[in-house]
Every structure is written in C-alpha cells, then in structure tokens.
C-alpha cells in the first residue's frame, strides 16, 4: 500500500508567469481573510465598524449563495427572486458605502466562508 510520499510530487510542466502570479494572488487573499479582531483603542469606531460590516458581508454572501441556489432549483417565485435580488443589491451597496465612510478597506471585510463557500 502506497503511503503519502515525503514531499509533494511536482509535475514537470513549466508554469507560466501569469499562472504563478494568479496563484500568488489567491493564496494571499485566502491568507488575508480576517481571522482576528481586536478593538483598536485609538480608533474604536472604525474597529467596531470593521467587525460589524465583516459579519454583515459574510452573511450577505451567504444569503446570496442561498438565494442563487434556490432560484436555480426553482423553489422561489418570480416575485421572490425580484425582491431578494433587489435586497441583496442594496445590501451590497450599503455595506460598501458604510465601509468607505468608516475608512474600512474592502479587503478588511473578507471573512472566509469556509466550507459554506464551496461549490456543490
């Protein structure tokens, strides 16, 4: 029975520059997903805004994913699709505007969806 070999087996195909950069971007993005929150005593409002908006954005992404799943599965009426779509649009805009107002960058709102974000 073969056991996991020491060290990853590399495929000998040259990687294009663009591919390497893209991999770097994605690895970086996933690593940067906000994992630890501490209130900054000098900028308490901004810290609070960042935490709240991160959670809202997390929930918004999750709601969007659920809505799409149900729309594709046909378990939403046309009216529901329209109403939910509008709500998500406005929610996304609201989060973005509030973040700007508090000086919170989009990348600071990035809570990893984890297993909930996987494609099924």
């Amino acid at each position, binding site marked *: *029975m*073969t*056991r*996991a*070999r*020491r*060290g*990853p*087996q*590399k*495929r000998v*195909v040259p*990687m*294009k520059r*663009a*591919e390497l950069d*893209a*991999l770097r*971007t*994605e690895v970086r*993005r996933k690593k940067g997903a906000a994992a630890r929150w501490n209130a900054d005593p000098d900028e308490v409002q901004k810290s609070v805004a960042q935490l709240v908006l991160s959670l809202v954005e997390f929930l918004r992404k999750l709601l*969007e*994913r659920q*809505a*799409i799943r149900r*729309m*594709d599965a046909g378990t939403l009426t*046309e009216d529901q*699709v*329209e*109403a*939910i*779509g*509008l*709500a*998500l*649009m406005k929610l996304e805009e609201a989060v973005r505007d509030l973040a700007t107002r508090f000086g919170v960058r989009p990348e600071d709102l990035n809570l990893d969806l*984890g*297993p909930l*974000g*996987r*494609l*099924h």
Partner: protein
Amino acid sequence: MTGLYVYALVPASVDAPLGTGLLEEELRVVSLGPIAAVVGEVDDTPSIAPASLRLHDEVVRRIARSSDAILPFRFGATVTSEAELAEGLAPRVEALATTLHRTRGCDQMTLRLYAEGGAPPPTPQTAAGPGTRWLRQRSAEQASSVPELARVRAALALCTRAESVELHDSPPLRASIFHLVERARLTEYRSQVDALAAAIAPARVAPTGPWPPYAFTELE
C-alpha cells in the same frame, strides 16, 4: 514558557511511538475520546518561515505513515496545556471523528485549473426587473464560464471519495479542486489527469500531491 504544538488528529487507536516533531521533540498522543491529538512540547511558537512550514508538513506526513486516517492541523497551533486542547476541541469531537473517518486510506490531490476566461456571460435581456437581472447575473458568474471545470470533475468522479471546489477570480486561475483519493487509486487518478490534458487544452490542470488531507478537515 512551555507550550504544546499540535500537529494532527488521529484515531484513538493509533500506534505510538510516532517519532519526533518540528524541534525534534518526542511526539505524544493526547486522548480526546474517539480521536486523539498528536502534540509535541515546544518552548516557543515557531514563526512562519519556509523551513518551518516544510517541517510541519514533513512531521504530518510522518504521522500519516503510522495512521490510517489523519486530520492535519494548520501550522502554528499551540496550546498551553492538554486541558486547554481538550476544552478547545470538545464541542466538535463527534464531527471531527466523522471527518477523520472519512479520510481513512486516502491522500489528498490538489488540482489548479488555469484557463483563459470566456467572454463574461451576457446580462440576461429579459423583461425581468432589476433585482432578477442582478441575481441571474450573479448566478451566471458563479457557475462561471469555466466549462473545463465540469469536464475535469466528471472525469475524476469515479476515483475520488470526496471533492471540494473553490472558484477563483484571478485569471488565468479559475478554480482549485481538492480530491480525497484512496491510496490504492492514486495511479489511476494520475492517469486520468494526464488523459485530461489533451481534452481541455488550451486550458490546463496542474496537479500537486499527494498531500495529507489539509482541505478535508471540515464536513460540508
């Protein structure tokens, strides 16, 4: 101040001894009921550097050779005591035991799918309202103009026990596909991946592995 560095979870029935860890400390097994944690005593938390990351992976692989199933820990997990470890994992022990069981006899293979983007999906021009158009657009973006993805998944479905897919928005990297593959079927898996090359060109799939099952530590 001494701490315990946590490397992996294994079945409670694992055979000790398991060798040594990052700092050549003796590895020991902490029982958590149906599962056990493999830990090593360390004085300091290792900081992130390529050498440390590689060593962590090496130690996990070494443990994997003595255990049929394994859930690797993320790099850098240290606790001050066994009690803290037990307390931290207590609410999830059952779920972790199930997840661990799923990995028995398997390694992970990772595929990165590189493809040039097709044209972005056209905004559905229907008489539908703005909300509907927005949602349909999002749905189309998610399903993505990555036809190669479905092809790859279908080609490998039969020789994988589990699959996890992440879509990416950094062209040409379109998706990462993680597969749990029985060790006995790794050769079959690799030949399938090779056979795909011609079928999906100019898109390509870059496999790495086998890995310990880092991407299969949570049930979906």
